[in-house]
C-alpha cells in the first residue's frame, strides 16, 4: 500500500526508499522540472527534496493529508527556496497551456491524478484573474512582483487575487474544514 510508505521509511525500512521513489519520484521530478526549467537544477533539487522526505517521514500524519500531498508540499517549499536564488523569468508557456485540462496520463500515480483533478476543479471555480495569479505563483513559483511584471496587474491586485483565490480554493477542496485543532 503506497500510503504506508512514509511510515516504513520512518521505521528505517530501506526497501521503502525504492518504493517511495517509484511511487512519488515522478511527481517530484515533474514538479522540479516544471518550476526550475533546468535539468541540472532539477536533479539537485530532487535530491534535496528526498532528503527532506526521509527526515520528515515520521512526522507524516495521515489524518492531515495524503502522502502525495505531503510530499508535494515538501517539494514545493524546497523548490520555492531554489527559485528565490535564481534570476528566473516567466516561462514561455502560455497561460492557456498552463490552464489546460490535465491530460489523462495512463501511468500517472492514481492518487496524484485524483488530487490533481480535484485541485483543477477547484481552480476552475475561481475567477480567471485568480486562476492566473495562483498558477503563476504555485505552478511557476513566481513572486508577486514577477507576477505583476508579467501580467501588468498592480502589485496590490496580485496579492488580492492570490489571497482570495487560495482561500476560495481551500474552501472548494474542503481542506482543513475539520473543527479539531491540529495536534501539536
Amino acid at each position, binding site marked *: 500500500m503506497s500510503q504506508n510508505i512514509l511510515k516504513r521509511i520512518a*521505521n528505517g525500512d*530501506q526497501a*521503502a*526508499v525504492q518504493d517511495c*521513489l517509484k511511487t512519488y*519520484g*515522478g511527481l*517530484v521530478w*515533474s*514538479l522540479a522540472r*516544471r518550476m526550475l526549467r533546468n535539468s541540472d537544477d532539477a*536533479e539537485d533539487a530532487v*535530491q*534535496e527534496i*528526498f*532528503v*527532506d522526505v*526521509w*527526515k*520528515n*517521514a*515520521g*512526522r507524516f*500524519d495521515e489524518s492531515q493529508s495524503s502522502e502525495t*500531498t505531503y510530499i508535494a*508540499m515538501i*517539494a*514545493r*517549499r*524546497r523548490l*520555492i527556496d*531554489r527559485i*528565490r*536564488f535564481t*534570476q528566473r523569468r516567466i516561462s514561455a508557456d502560455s497561460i492557456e497551456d*498552463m490552464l*489546460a485540462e*490535465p*491530460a489523462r*496520463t495512463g501511468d*500517472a500515480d492514481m492518487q496524484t491524478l485524483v488530487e*490533481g483533478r*480535484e*485541485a*483543477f476543479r*477547484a*481552480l476552475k471555480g475561481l475567477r480567471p484573474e485568480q486562476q492566473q495569479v495562483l498558477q503563476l505563483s504555485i*505552478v511557476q513559483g513566481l513572486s*508577486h512582483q514577477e507576477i505583476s511584471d508579467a501580467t501588468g496587474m498592480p502589485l496590490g491586485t496580485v*496579492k488580492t487575487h*492570490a*489571497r482570495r483565490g*487560495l482561500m476560495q*480554493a481551500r474552501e472548494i*477542496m474542503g*481542506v*482543513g474544514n475539520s473543527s479539531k485543532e*491540529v*495536534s*501539536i
Partner: protein
Amino acid sequence: MSSKLDERGLELLCDHTLFGVSDEELRELESLAPDALSGNDAVAFEFTAAQLSMINTDNAELPQHLFDKIVANSKQHVGVETNVFTAPRRDVIAEKQNSGAIWGWLGWAVAGAASIALAVNIFSPQSGTEVANLPKDPPVVEQKLTPLQLRQRLIDTEQAALRADWSKGTFKDSEGISGDVVWSDAKQTGYMRISGLPVNDKAKNQYQLWIFEDSKLEKFPKDGGVFDVDENGEVIIPIDAKIAVNNPKAFAITVEKPGGVVVSERGQIAGLAPVKPSQS
C-alpha cells in the same frame, strides 16, 4: 488552541504560503495571533497550495541515475530524525524536533523556503526548539536564533545573497557531500548547509573553509574559519570570515590539522561550491 484569525490574519497567512512574508509582516501576524503559524489555517493553506501544485504534473519517470543516487544517499538519512548538529566553535544550537508537532516538522520541512521555518520556530511556543523563554511582549532585543533560523532570515531579507551548491572534492570520505552556501556581501554573513561530511576527530584534524574571490581559485583565498562535524546528518554552520569578503566566486572546504592553517596545501578538499556566474 489556536486563535481565530481575522481577515487580515488570513491574508498574511496566504501571503506566507504563496510568497513568503517580511519580518515586519511576520511580527504583524504574530501580534494578531501568536500561534497563527501552528494553527489549522496555516496547515490548510500549505496543503491547498501543495494540491494545486499537482495540476498538470506529468509524472515522468525519475531518471535511473538520479534514482540510484538518491537511494545511495538515503542510507545516511533514513531513520535519522535529528537534522541539525553542533559545530562547537561556532556555538551552533542543536534543534530538538518534537516528533508529535506537525508544525515542528513543517517548520523543518520548509527550512529552506520562504520564511516559514523562521516564523514557526520563533513564534510557535510548542515547536520544541531550544529558542527558549519567549516573553509575552515582543522583545526589543532580538531573540537568539538557531543557525538554521539565521540562515533563513538571511535568505528572506537579502535579495542579493549568493548561493552555491556543494559538490565533491578530492577527499574520498566526503564524496556524498551536498547542501549549499548562502552568503551576503552586504552583511558579511553567510551559512553553510552541509550533508555528507564525515564526523572528524578533533584531535587529529578539523575542517576549514576557504573563500575565493577569483574564479581561477587564487593561491591565497580568504580564511572562512575552522569547524567540526560531530554527528552524521545535516549541519548548518555560520561562516566566520576573518577579513572582508567581496563578491566570492567559490567556497572550498579542506581537511586540515586542528586549528587550521594559514595557507592550505589543498591536499584533501572535502567540498567545493562554485558560485554560478549569473550570481557573481
